[in-house]
């Protein structure tokens, strides 16, 4: 079992993404360092469009998250509704 992670520039736009990820991934851990917010999760992390839309109150295209994305680790599977990082092993 290994961690996957995703990291964003720490700003007002990424705040709801972090909140959504924490809501949808109970075992996620958030780590802040200057300018950066990183979220680790064991084995799988999902970013859900619906959860983000609930938080921000508007339609959201998941691909927008790339604007503030800094780095990630894990196998990516993305569609219009979910952006999933996972390890298969």
């Amino acid at each position: 079992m290994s961690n996957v992670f995703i990291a964003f520039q720490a700003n007002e736009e990424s705040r709801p993404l972090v909140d959504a990820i924490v809501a949808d991934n109970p075992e996620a851990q958030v780590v802040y360092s200057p300018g950066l917010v990183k979220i680790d999760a064991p084995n799988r992390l999902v970013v859900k469009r619906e959860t983000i839309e609930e938080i921000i109150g508007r339609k959201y295209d998941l691909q927008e998250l790339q604007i503030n994305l800094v780095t990630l680790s894990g196998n990516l599977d993305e569609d219009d509704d979910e952006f999933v990082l996972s390890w298969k092993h």
Partner: protein
Amino acid sequence: MDKRVEKKKLDLSSRYQALTQDLQWDTSYQSMDKVFPYARYEGIRINDWSQWQDPFKMTLDVWWRQQSEKDRRLYAVLDAFAQNNGQIGVSDARYVNAVKLVLQAFAPMKYALHRSLAHSARNLPGDAARIAAQIQATEQLRHSQLTVHAASVYNKYFNGMHAAPRWHEQAWYLAPVKSFADDIASAGPFELMVAISFGFETLLSDTLYVPFMSAAAHNGDLSMVPAGFSSQSDVTRHKQAGTAMVKFLLQQDSLNIATVQRWVDKWFWRSFRLMPLVAMLQDYMVPKRVGSWKESWNTFVEAPINALFAELAPYGLKKPAGWQAACAAKDHLSHQSWNAFYGYGHAIAFHTWVPGNDELAWLDSKYPNSFDRWYRPRLTHYAQLEAAGKRFHNHSLPMQCQVCQQPMMFTEPGDGRWISYRETRHEEESFHFCSDQCQTIFSNEPDKYVQAQLASHTILHSNSNNTPEDALQASIAALGVVIGRDNGEFHGSEDDTNFTEWGGGQDMKEAQL
């Protein structure tokens, strides 16, 4: 009344398919071999290109929109930083030497890599792979440009940034970076994708563009930070495409496995041999520290890459041959690198210095196994010499590794005592290497490396008039580096006195070292 019907959008996969794939056809007017002349010579066998999938299903319209949005935002920050004299808001003018090194080493490297990726973008027979390579090529150029733009405000106020592309080409201490880029430039379209997207970007690039950039933020550098973070957002896509390429090659034909393993071994190691620069940026060149190189290695390399190789094992790929040695180096790398640059400080294009006592204490706390035992004594000795007006200068020409072209400054894996020497006799000539891995790289392709122009040798070719003691410094003076102004001891330099005069700096007493 007419019912408004929402036009059904294609889903993400279908949009991606429509706008980036389905562009492939087998040519009939000319043979495929003529249209793609570089596709076979590396010995890679592909049976079905439609199996190559980019995990990031980004269509070009989304890409253009997002990239321009990213650039709009970050250039606004760069402008604001410049307009508000952000350059005097950094922690300490020593920090600016980190900017200089990034500009000298990595901006030209990214530029060189973009040209190589353009080669893959033309010559890979698969349409989706060609598009990924094209996007990556454009983005490497973007990263090079972002770095230059982000550094340009500093260039107006500080020394040592006026000829970075030239120094990348010819300065001895940047030769490992140039050699890395040249080795890639002479590789085929498959190898160079594995080298760049997998070897450098997936396995190691986070160390430069994530924790170092966070440290840059902590030191008040609002110019480099958005450039670095925004660059790395592109690299998330390069990493996924690079890993996809490796899996694809492994799956297409079992005969590819040995070749891919050899490339992974080589390019992990060649990329790792760029890390001395990154390690010392993190541990020595950011006055207000966020974390150590060792911590960055653990978080951004050792843990995730162990996970990645566990994932790739079922495809037949093993961890890179140099993996153990690279992990064992985490207690030593930054210290050995700074020690070398300090000693050769008269022959480079940025300043060096001995860290202050608080900083030495921090280094000890982060490296309890190695710092006090091996490295603090050198630094305190250098401080004593400096205080007595006899700053240490190593006036010799450094022996360099034939493959990675680093000075032979590395010790045996996990050890601080013995310099690592390896030697091969090839066609009546002796060649020397810093490690088993560089020696193996040489033995696999000797013709690539026997022709290498090692600076310490070329300086001594018969047609030069240099004596070894002066030669290294003379070689950079010939490139327009002003000795004493652009290099040497930081304390008392023009950068230092200017910065004080301008009222620059942050309150270091509150600083979390």
